[in-house]
């Protein structure tokens, strides 16, 4: 049943003036159809900051349209923890059936989740997990296994370097669970598979390509002997590749990333980029929605519901479709 009028499309047609009117219509329609449906509220981390999150949001809305029995409230915290907490409060006050949260911070949202639990609303965490302390409070986590992804990256790096070399690491936004987990997975696994690969330096790239490019430029000035780069996503990895290319040092460096982006896929096709982890935002979104629906229906769900995120390298890339983001 299609009750949710996609606000973006509506607004593009009607223009800015009728902005609020559009929302009222969509709300009115959803109100009429409310009788038999579940209301699921989601508060996302920061839509628009990169394509992954935006594609996720669209996939989520599309999946909700396809499903018969859901009515979704889609909110965006804009990367601000405080705003996310107030959005959780708003969702509690609207008495939705399930809250899906994409945490802006793994620890800071725990009390808000506790608040939802106290109000009798189950919480599903999506994409990036929350801290240990919050684990008993949630119904389920749905998303990639980021520690595993870090470990995959370490293995690919090890293979490509042939067991020894000096590498640098560009991490995601400090404090963000995905960033922490990927770094941990990478740093824990690397000495196990390749004790002779040394991490020279680690700096954050904030999930931002321009920032990562700049960070890499500094690495290149500082170290004459960089053999490999691990970037916590392909967006940053391509930034690092750009920096190395402009110094004519790309040929001597192995680039490993995560969350395969279209740019990373293309660079890999050109032979400039060496490995990543394939992770589909659409699958991420569908997974989260399905689990939330199951929770709403009172079904048993796994506490940790990881979806599959395989390694992708130049050798096996034909098996994967080019990412849409």
């Amino acid at each position, binding site marked *: 049943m299609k009750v949710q009028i996609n606000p973006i499309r509506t607004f593009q047609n009607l223009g800015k003036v009728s902005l609020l009117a559009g929302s009222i219509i969509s*709300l009115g329609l959803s109100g009429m159809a409310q009788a038999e449906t579940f209301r699921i509220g989601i508060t996302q981390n920061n839509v628009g900051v990169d394509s992954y999150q935006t594609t996720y949001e669209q996939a989520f809305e599309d999946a909700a349209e396809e499903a018969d029995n859901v009515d979704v409230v889609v909110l965006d915290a804009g990367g601000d*923890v*405080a705003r996310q907490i107030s959005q959780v409060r708003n969702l509690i*006050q609207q008495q939705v059936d399930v809250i899906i949260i994409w945490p802006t*911070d793994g620890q800071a949202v725990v*009390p*808000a989740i506790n*608040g939802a639990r106290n109000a009798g609303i189950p919480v599903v965490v999506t994409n990036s997990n929350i801290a240990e302390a919050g684990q008993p409070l949630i119904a389920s986590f749905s998303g990639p296994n980021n520690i595993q992804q870090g470990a995959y990256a370490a293995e690919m790096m090890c293979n490509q370097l042939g067991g020894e070399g000096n590498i640098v690491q560009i991490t995601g936004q400090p*404090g963000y669970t995905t960033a922490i987990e990927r770094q941990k997975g990478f740093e824990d696994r690397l000495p196990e598979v390749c004790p002779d690969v040394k991490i020279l330096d680690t700096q954050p790239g904030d999930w931002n390509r321009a920032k990562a490019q700049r960070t890499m430029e500094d690495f290149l000035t500082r170290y004459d002997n960089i053999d490999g780069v691990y970037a916590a996503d392909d967006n940053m990895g391509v930034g690092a590749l750009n920096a190395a290319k402009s110094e004519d040092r790309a040929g001597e460096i192995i680039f490993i990333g995560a969350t395969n982006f279209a740019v990373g896929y293309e660079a890999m096709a050109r032979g400039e980029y060496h490995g990543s982890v394939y992770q589909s935002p659409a699958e991420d979104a569908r997974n989260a929605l399905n689990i939330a629906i199951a929770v709403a229906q009172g079904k048993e769900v796994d506490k940790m519901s990881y979806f599959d995120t395989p390694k992708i390298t130049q050798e096996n890339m034909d098996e994967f479709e080019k990412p849409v983001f």
Partner: protein
Amino acid sequence: MNRIIDLVKRQPIWIFVFICVVFFSFSSPYFFDIRNFSNILVQASTIGLIALGMTFVMINGNIDLSVGATLALAASLAVGLQPQLGITGAVLVGLLSGIVIGALNGIIAWKTGVDAFIVTLGAMIGVRGLVFIYTGEQAFYAHDLAYSDFGASSLFGMPVLALIFICLTIIAHLVLKYTIHGRNVFAVGGNRVAAKEAGIRVGPHMLLNFILIGFLAALSGILLSTQMGASTPNLGRNYELWTITAVVLGGTRLTGGFGSIIGTLGGVLAIAILRNGMNLLQVPSFYVLIILGSILIIVLFIDKRFAEPQGVGA
């Protein structure tokens, strides 16, 4: 009746708040609800507490851009030091850090004569550096649940955070309106030279206001961290901009000498209600940015049209 009309004239932002309330009440079934209102108050309290201090500083003819970073520093200390000092000790250190940053800004502005905008722009960048050095880029978690319980607690059916905000708003209003210090805030902002020559100790006076805003920013950060049971190094980014926006919406003049706590409260509520209402209506976040930006400019335009006499274009 005349007094009400007069009040409306002097506080146009309250008309806007009223219109927003009416509009959202009709457009969303969830808006007009006592629980939603207390949500709005809690949401407003973070920016609101800083805005109280900002009102003093801006009427003084200064500005403080470092409040977002100060907020993060206080929150990080108040959470991060709990294992060593316990909750009370850590919170006190957090509050102290705000006072120290405020005092530092105030002393620099006073003794060097560098414009407060520049002094606090520097502090905004530097204090954030301190936060990162102290936290090592990590978020801290409060292991004692009593800490986050406080953030979620209620008294007389009102969230404690909202009550604290309301109480401090009343106190700030009384201080600004009825104390000698409050009166001097206007004097120093209206004509600094005159105030100095009338025997008001301008430097220490401004220092006191910087300490006040530092304290309030720290308090706001600590209360925010009780809502999260944690602190993050990036907490409070851009809060200085939203605080200034709220204060200006509330009618405080940027060049100093004029403003009120009542107006600031209106400005803070206007932003909180707009955000809350647009969330309820599910306005996409992209449009929320455009709407908030436009409203700020429109209010400024209306204010200028009605507040200033049309005269020589000078």
